[in-house]
């Protein structure tokens, strides 16, 4: 078995036994994998702080089905800017949990790796905010092929411009003729969501005040329909945004 060198972002890690750690990593080369780091809590030399959540690391491991064996990790960045701001920590942990919950194990998704890296860099340079979070989510859904149809009614194919859009359960968008009830989605907000997909940079798209709420509702519904559960970090994200 060959030792591989990978780039990874630590999605989560937990203590195991007296001195070991189990980490979930999102690697550029193999997507999401789980790794066992023997003696990680004792060996400052081999791992140091490299298995801290949302750290970006260079990793050496022996790849195995299920639990890979982590040999050594060097920190590229711990994102000290994120660690100094509560809302940024909350958003970064949410992003990591979302990626861990929604990505398949062992399938490389390099575009998503780059998106997560860009989002963490954005959080590292300033406080987390709902607009960047929604930009991250819609691009993540788009990369994984889970994006809802934003251009036209998912049932009849008609353009929303004429009929208006309603959010249905599971994050589906339907026109007012196909669906009698549902949470209204402003057409302007749909345009802004589409703009999020065409720009590769955070901070360029600004949502209108009455657009961010339905956009959030739509994306939350789509995410829950794919993860199958409400993410644990959402409660903390909500609490920090109210402080």
């Amino acid at each position, binding site marked *: 078995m060959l030792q591989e060198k990978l780039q990874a972002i630590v999605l989560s890690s937990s203590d195991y036994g007296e001195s070991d750690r189990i980490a979930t990593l999102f690697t550029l080369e193999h997507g999401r994998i789980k790794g066992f780091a023997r003696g990680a809590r004792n060996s*400052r*030399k081999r791992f140091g702080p490299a298995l801290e959540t949302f750290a970006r690391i260079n990793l050496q491991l022996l790849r195995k089905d299920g639990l890979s064996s982590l040999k050594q990790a060097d*920190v590229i*960045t711990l994102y000290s800017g994120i*660690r100094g701001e509560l809302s940024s*920590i909350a958003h970064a942990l949410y992003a990591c949990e979302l990626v861990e919950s929604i990505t398949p194990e062992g399938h490389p998704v390099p575009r998503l790796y780059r998106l997560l890296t860009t989002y963490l860099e954005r959080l590292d340079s300033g406080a987390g905010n709902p607009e960047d979070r929604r930009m991250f989510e819609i691009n993540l859904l788009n990369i994984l092929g889970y994006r809802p149809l934003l251009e036209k009614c998912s049932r009849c194919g008609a353009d929303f411009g004429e009929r208006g859009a309603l959010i249905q359960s599971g994050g589906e968008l339907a026109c007012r003729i196909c669906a009698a009830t549902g949470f209204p989605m402003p057409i302007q907000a749909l345009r802004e969501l589409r703009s999020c997909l065409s720009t590769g940079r955070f901070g360029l798209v600004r949502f209108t005040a009455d657009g961010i709420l339905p956009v959030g509702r739509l994306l939350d519904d789509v995410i829950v329909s794919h993860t199958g559960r409400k993410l644990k970090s959402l409660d*903390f994200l909500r609490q920090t945004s109210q402080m």
Partner: protein
Amino acid sequence: MLTKSSSLMRLVGELKKLPGIGERTALRLAFHLLKSPQNLTALSESLCEVRDRVHPCSTCFAITETDPCSICSGNRDSSVICVIENSQDLMALERSNAYNGMYHVLEGAISPLSGIGPADLRIGELLSRVTEGQLKEVVIATNFTVEGEATALYLTKALKSTGVKVSRLAHGIPLGSDIEFVDAATVQWALQGRNEL
């Protein structure tokens, strides 16, 4: 022949539940205890004693046998409270002989990925102590992990309105270590937090 329901296997099962103890170690420990009935009796008595006598202090939530604990009822500086994650951290700080104030044990740290939020910790009790007492300073000594940092930042925000001084333990290069062997992230933090001499 030992069966799964035998008392020895029950003991092995209980030992296995302890952190860092696997099946083989549990079996080895159980046979070691069997060899010396006096040790077995002493162990069982001390386990019962711990169960009956040790509990968290009603003021600071540190593990104690008296209520309030010796620190809360002793002659210490009551104008400073050091906030820590658990009672083991208290022991480490006491070993340093560098602190003479009071403590407050949170009984954990905010861990959003494990579903542990501020309401699951002793934060409400800390805020009550701060608002009711004549405090000058709260020293936050949570761990330097993401969870510990999140807890420290949350406490800083929650304590802001009380007007009390809030400080955080310093972090950087450990004493007695060579800089060349220290990881880059720690060196970076040490540089950011450097002191004027």
